[in-house]
């Protein structure tokens, strides 16, 4: 086995010889191999589960990310998972690989954007923003694409179900998290992501704030829009 020594050398040159370099270099190789083998993003927990006991995939990922910086393939973060993706500037080489995607209707695109920027959002809120009713087919199509899914119920009368975007959505649009949506900050500071009730018809819509208090547990993206 000559690999360990070459690895050590490789890391020495790359990362200025860390004291635990061989071990970390090996971990980096493992993470690299696992990510290469799958098309879907892999979470740190999953990596931990598959790598030998005591490994620190998070650190290995950091090294690996640096290593792939500027390469034809890059390591990207998608939600709390990681994946290797080709560099976007090389897309022109891949016409062969491009799969013809169904063209989304304007209604579907707008509904998707509203779910992404306002999540968790109810159907009634989507309709309020677009000013027209949302057809069944539109929501159906977005669920089928696995770009949106049912989220938590809103703790308001009727307990309406909410919609949130999925990890597939983030992966598809190359987003690390829903926070990275283009223009999110500007929209928020302009107050355009608030659910403002129409004057004179208070209660029905106001409970938006209640939702914030409800979403104090971890994990969900809802708190994304409550903080700050």
């Amino acid at each position, binding site marked *: 086995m000559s690999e360990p020594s070459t690895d050590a050398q490789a890391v020495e040159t790359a990362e200025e010889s860390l004291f635990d370099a061989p071990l970390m270099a090996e971990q980096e190789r493992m993470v690299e191999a696992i990510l290469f083998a799958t098309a879907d993003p892999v979470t740190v927990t999953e990596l931990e589960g598959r790598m030998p006991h005591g490994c620190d995939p998070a650190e290995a990922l950091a090294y690996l990310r640096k290593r792939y910086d500027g390469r034809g393939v890059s390591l990207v973060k998608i939600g709390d998972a990681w994946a*290797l993706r080709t560099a976007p500037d090389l*897309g022109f080489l891949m016409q062969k690989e491009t799969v013809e995607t169904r063209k*989304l209707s304007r209604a579907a*695109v707008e509904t998707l954007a509203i779910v992404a920027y306002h999540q968790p959002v109810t159907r009634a809120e989507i309709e309020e923003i677009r000013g027209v009713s949302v057809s069944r087919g539109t929501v159906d199509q977005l669920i089928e694409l696995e770009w949106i899914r049912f989220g938590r119920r809103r703790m308001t009368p009727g307990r309406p179900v909410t919609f949130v975007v999925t990890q597939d959505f983030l992966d*598809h649009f190359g987003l690390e998290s829903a926070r990275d949506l283009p223009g999110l900050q500007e929209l928020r500071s302009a107050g355009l992501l608030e659910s403002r009730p129409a*004057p004179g018809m208070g209660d029905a819509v106001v409970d938006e704030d209640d939702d914030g208090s409800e979403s104090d547990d971890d994990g969900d993206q809802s708190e994304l829009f409550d903080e700050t």
Partner: protein
Amino acid sequence: MSNATTFESDVSDRLAAEALIVDVDGFEGPLDLLLTLSRTQKVDLRQISVLALAQQYLAFIHKARDLRLELAADYLVMAAWLAFLKSRLLLPPDPSEDGPSGEELAAHLAFQLERLSAMREAAAKLMARDQLARDFFARGITEDVTRTRRVTYTATLLDLMQGYARIRTKDEFRPFVLDREKIFTMEEALGRLRGLIGFAGDWTDILSYLPDGWEIDPAKRRSATASTFAASLELAKEGKIEMRQGDVFSPIQIRKRDR
């Protein structure tokens, strides 16, 4: 000559009307139409004149009506609301009146338009991003080297929900079938009456034609009475029987009509 010109103007009118139809169809509801109209003001949506916008919208609707176009109800609802808003904005505020002021309503409308416009832009930005399998790509060769074959079972939330929906839909039909048991249909009543009426010599209460076993249960009795009555009307119309009722609420009697 004059005929020809009227004909020509007819054509241009019709073309204009058709263009408008296409236009109305092109809008996704009143808010979308308002947003498009607001573009003609060429100002930041925050500085938009809602009053001018309301007038534009009302003029648009008015024109559409002159051309006798079918307008969806929500366009008319919006028109009515904007007319109300316009009057609120033009008249000095009445302190005795409660409810939101014209300015508040106008501000909210401006907010809605700005938000819709912002979401449109956001949607466009989103779709303009590099996309998976179009601009960047996932691993082409995924390694699922079947070395150890351990079987796991998967199901998606969609499977689960569809499975549940399947059972529940099945469920929903069940009481429907049960309910039918207490319904004596008009067809059944007609068939029964046609068969029996030949044997009746004289005036007979229609209640005596109810099928056996349908007299006790109130629901069944009601259904059978109604359908028998309807069936006897049908037979009377066909000229097969005569009907009479002595007084209000007294028994309805029928007899075979001899030709």
